[in-house]
């Protein structure tokens, strides 16, 4: 499934940890605090636990949205769009 991770974190160190975790789980950076990528259900579960343990639950917030590829194609993009094919691993799968 495709997964959006969107966060609002005030502390630089924590924010950096969260972004590194997202990248480690194969997500692509769509915007500064927006990540998107293809993950399996166990990775999603694990990622949620790590993020919960990383942030300050009283002041920080992270939205984690699973989405299907069909829904991503229906999504509206205004301005500079990211590479949808790259995010949904379609380009990668053409090579391998």
């Amino acid at each position, binding site marked *: 499934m495709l997964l959006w991770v969107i966060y609002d974190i005030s502390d630089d160190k924590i924010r950096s940890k969260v972004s590194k975790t997202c990248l480690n789980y194969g997500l692509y950076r769509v915007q500064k605090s927006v990540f998107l990528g293809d993950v*399996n*259900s*166990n*990775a999603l*579960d*694990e990622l949620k*636990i*790590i993020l919960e*343990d990383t942030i300050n639950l009283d002041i920080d917030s992270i939205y984690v949205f699973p989405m299907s590829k069909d829904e991503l194609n229906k999504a509206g993009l205004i301005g500079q769009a990211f590479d949808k094919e790259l995010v949904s691993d379609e380009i990668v799968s053409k090579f391998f």
Partner: protein
Amino acid sequence: MKSSQNSFNNFEGFNENEYYITPSEMLEFLYCKRYTYFMNYLGISQHEEKRYKVLKGRTIHEKKELENANYLRKKINVVDKKINVSMVSKNYGIKGIADEVLTLSNGTMASLDYKFAEYNDIIYKTYKMQTIMYSLMIAETFNAEVTQGYILYCRGKNVLKEIEVNIKEINKLNKYLEEFKKVMSGHYPKSASNKLKCIDCCYKNICVK
């Protein structure tokens, strides 16, 4: 492979060179029999210590051990409990460490196992068989009657579930123990029928379907 077996050496007749099946190994075996082949027979480590959920589960176990040391679950009529109990069953060739061994008000004993998981309306076969294994070990170690075991799902709402220990389940376990031994003697088993299990498997690169 689980390394430390020292705590089991106090058991009479325990032979450390003999292979004893642990509840954790049975859990992996029931998830996919190939797991046992790769991990226990071929000795290829799954490096579970690198998985965050495994580490978190271990931390929670340690925390529960300290936090709930004197807490007796009154709802299920517990009158006494032992924590982290090493047990061996010579009859079944199994050994393991139960999170808690409870003494109930009716004189029977029961195991309680903490699971870092959410309860999703179904108790999996893997958990059931683990509980049966603990029950058999309790019965043999403490010479007590065991009619049920408990599982506590730590994630979510700390749901406590009861598992009945009956002859039907024990027979099932016996069958699985035989299959386990067969795999340990070199039999290459079929992979799990549900291919969804393979998606996140650490052996998927070497497992021939």
